[in-house]
């Protein structure tokens, strides 16, 4: 039977075969845009590091950024208060009182860059340069004992950082 649903699916697959020149049988009211023109919005960082920009920073440089921009909310050396604790807790996740921090819980270092760049500092998001984001990421990783002070974080080194809880996540099992 020729159903509406099948018509749509069939038309879509024709389009796929048709290639970039063909159009889907919809209203087509979207405006094509060149990939270069979306760069300012394309801020998400893939878990393999795809999308990381040029630039770099060290823990030492990051400490200066942290003291100026992060300390008021996250405390000295990331101990937390009044807002999230960022440091410590490694090895506590299976205990009765787990301490979830960037160091103990976050599975991937790329997420730190992604999140800080998009959302921090809370009152001035998007005010840090890429170098500053790399630097403050390095500072947090160093405070957590995950990298050494001299390590330089950039688009090559950051995705290679092995987080303590990188294997800590499992897909949800329905019914649990």
């Amino acid at each position, binding site marked *: 039977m020729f159903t509406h649903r099948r018509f749509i699916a069939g038309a879509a697959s024709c389009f*796929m075969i048709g290639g970039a020149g063909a159009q889907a049988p919809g209203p087509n009211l979207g405006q094509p845009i*060149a990939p270069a023109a979306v760069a300012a919005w394309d801020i998400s960082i893939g878990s393999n590091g795809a999308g990381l920009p040029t630039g770099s920073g060290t823990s030492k440089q990051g400490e200066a950024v942290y003291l100026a921009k992060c300390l008021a909310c996250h405390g000295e050396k990331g101990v937390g208060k009044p807002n999230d604790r960022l440091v410590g807790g490694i090895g506590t996740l299976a205990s009765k009182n787990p301490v979830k921090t960037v160091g103990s819980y976050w599975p991937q270092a790329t997420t730190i860059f992604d999140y800080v760049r998009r959302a921090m500092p809370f009152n001035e998001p998007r005010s840090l340069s890429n170098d500053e984001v790399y630097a403050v990421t390095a500072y947090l990783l160093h405070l957590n004992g995950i990298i050494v002070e001299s390590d330089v974080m950039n688009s090559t080194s950051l995705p290679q950082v092995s987080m303590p809880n990188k294997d800590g996540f499992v897909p*949800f099992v329905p019914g649990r």
Partner: protein
Amino acid sequence: MRRAQTTNDFQWIPVAGNGLLDRRLFLTGGLAAAPMAAGTALGISTAHPQALSDGSWMKAPGLPFSGYGHPSQHESKVARVARSAPGTTGAGGSRTPIQLLNGTITPNGLHFERHHSGIPEINPDVHRLLIHGLVKRPLVFTLEALARYPMESRIAFIECGGNSNFLYEREPSQLGAQWMHGLVSCAEWTGVKLSTLLDEAGVDPRASWILAEGADAAAVSRSVPMAKAMDDALIALYQNGERVRPANGYPMRLLLPGYEGIMQIKWLRRIKLTDAPTMTRDETSRYTMLLQDGKAFQFNFPMECKSVILQPSQGLTMKGEGFYEISGLAWSGYGKITKVEVSTDGGKSWAAAALQEPVLSRALTRFRIPWRWSGGPAVLQSRATDETGYVQPSRDKLMAARGANAYFHFNGITSWAIAANGDVKHVYT
């Protein structure tokens, strides 16, 4: 033992312990005869204390028209309650007064909110939706363009992944149903099927996920499986008939019926097709469920089957023995609610509540059952079943499976204990 009592033209039948009555009391139209019957069989009537007289509002013309209406001034207590992170005013949640509402649709001004950096004041004329990544043709849509597309409506609940998480705590919270369970709301959402737009952009076969991102100051972003995006996802432009409220994503939000609230990105500005989840902060550091062995459940997308009794509930006080309708809400991110059972004796006996029609998939479902409160102790519970056959677990069962640190997706049974003085407390049984 069942003991039918007949009063004039309707009857009530005990169906479970401690005063639960047959749900069909209402369905047979018996309520029309209830005032007399209630006086003789279910409740206690006392004489009205004075003669009836006209109110002052009948002695002069009423108020003029208004451009946009508001609730009665006498309903000012029907309001959201909010809490924000230290040092912030818009990074937290506000909760729907579910215990003071009835039916299944949440008024737009009372829909719960969960913002990560306040409500952006977006100019709809300059807002854009970008679809890019693994597509043949990246596309940008204006609101004006989207408004010309064929639209669909879905009545769907949205529930925050953190709703009900007070029940993971070791001692039963006494904050009331609104604080405990008010991060859920239900609306009719109208907009454009996301699959239509993705088809127009041309999906690369390697695309298995989308990343959805908002235009708020936190640019909240979440990965969503491609299958959901192509199934029933909407770019919602309307909420209960009017444009989506600023607090719910104006001028457009992603609607993913049944899925965890944060995935239904508000102020949607970008969808990127990818071959893997992006592992954003809000799908790793947050909205994951830490288990007793130190591992954490990730990618728990649909909200599990849940129900809660709201009338009565902790925070509301009983006004003397006699007839009450026990009423509440049930929902499941996996489909339709098929059954809600209610107990007033702490789970010793159960009876099926009436489900208010229409019962819709992934929407709030209202349940009701009549009850004659004896004035003695009672523990009220509700237990929902969805169309997959999944039964809402007891709190003990859920805690045994997940431990006390899972924080998200609590869907165990809530227990309200009623004392002889009419006070309602939250208890663990």
